[in-house]
């Protein structure tokens, strides 16, 4: 645990984690405060920080990255209107299975999280929870204008503007809506990035955990889940 580096400054110190969560003296484990949970539930959940595993280099890692790029399992969680474009991908016309892409029902089984368009604050809470439950290496594809700059909901009171402030994103697919062809192009780009070893979102998330967490807590006011939902 002692190798965690906090490389980026906190966006808003007022919403930072409690000092109890900061690195202690040598040898003392880092502990998350889990302030959102009732006292009797704190024992049920993990209170450890995420650990950065990697990035790894070398021949074996290249082989593993090739294998990962050929077996992209999408989390079946339609987070916005863009999820409707995932359905045609499964049909014979676009046939995403030929690229090794298939939907999975739980975060534990999947490696790709497709953010399907706008994310309201209520959905963002579920996105964060699902993303943290996914096992690394995990990749995020954000589709639609809404994930990039808010899109048509840029001035909405309930819709976030840039998803990358809350979870790391590997590939953006622009469009409103992006067509299934654009999605396939995005997945191909994701495969290329994975093979180049550039998709280290989970490492980035662990290294900048406090920055992401501060951003998340700034918009999610009723934080009634663990600080890290692994």
């Amino acid at each position, binding site marked *: 645990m002692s190798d965690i580096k906090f490389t980026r400054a906190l966006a808003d110190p007022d919403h930072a984690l409690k000092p109890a969560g900061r690195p202690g003296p040598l040898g003392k484990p880092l502990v998350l405060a889990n302030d959102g949970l009732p006292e009797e539930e704190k024992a049920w959940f993990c209170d450890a920080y995420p650990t950065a595993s990697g990035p790894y280099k070398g021949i074996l890692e290249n082989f593993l990255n090739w294998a990962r790029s050929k077996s992209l399992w999408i989390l079946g969680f339609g987070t916005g209107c863009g999820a409707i474009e995932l359905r045609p991908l499964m049909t014979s016309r676009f046939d995403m299975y030929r690229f090794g892409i298939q939907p999975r029902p739980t975060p534990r089984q999947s490696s790709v999280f497709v953010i399907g368009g706008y994310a309201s604050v209520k959905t963002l809470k579920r996105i964060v929870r699902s993303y943290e439950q996914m096992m690394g290496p995990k990749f995020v594809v954000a589709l639609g204008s809404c994930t990039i700059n*808010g899109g048509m909901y840029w001035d909405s009171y309930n819709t976030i*503007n*840039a998803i990358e402030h809350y979870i790391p994103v590997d590939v953006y697919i622009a469009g409103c809506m992006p067509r299934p062809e654009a999605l396939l192009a995005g997945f191909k780009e994701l495969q290329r990035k994975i093979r180049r070893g550039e998709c280290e979102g989970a490492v980035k998330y662990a290294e900048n955990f406090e920055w992401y967490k501060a951003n998340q807590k700034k*918009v*999610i*006011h009723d934080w009634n889940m663990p600080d890290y939902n692994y």
Partner: protein
Amino acid sequence: MRTIPADIAERFEVGPLVSKRADLSTLDVDAKDVPELLARLRDRHGYRHLSFVTATDQIEEGVFVLTYMLHNHADNHSLGVKCRVGRENAVMESCHLLWEQMWTYQRELKELFGIDFPGSPRVDESFVLEGWIDIPPMRREFDTREYSERTFPTRPGRSTKDPATHMKEKLYPEAL
């Protein structure tokens, strides 16, 4: 031409029946009479279906206009019962005993407009917004753009340059 039924006209102080379409009319009524009027319309005049309940924010007049839209399936007619509630500490009597689905609308109105319905089931729980801490967002004094800019960080947009000014800066900086 539809007219207000005699038993309603003599019991309640109702405004004129405004016909919007052949199958849609509205009726203004005092807020305190609404539950009795709705019950009478439902039980005696065939308006058995509650389509929706909504509010409009008339900020210039300092009132919310609540519209209870009822439908009569027998003669295919919708009737909107409208009443006015003051914007400050807006409270309206709950009608959830007439139609069970009414409490969902009332919970929504509580959250998005801040109109309270004492006694309505689960009216204080959050409906679509979780952990909302500002004024209710559908009130017209709520500035959604200002709130969005204050709350949600955005990515910096592209910067563009006017070609004429740009070339003038590069070629003739002394002229500026």
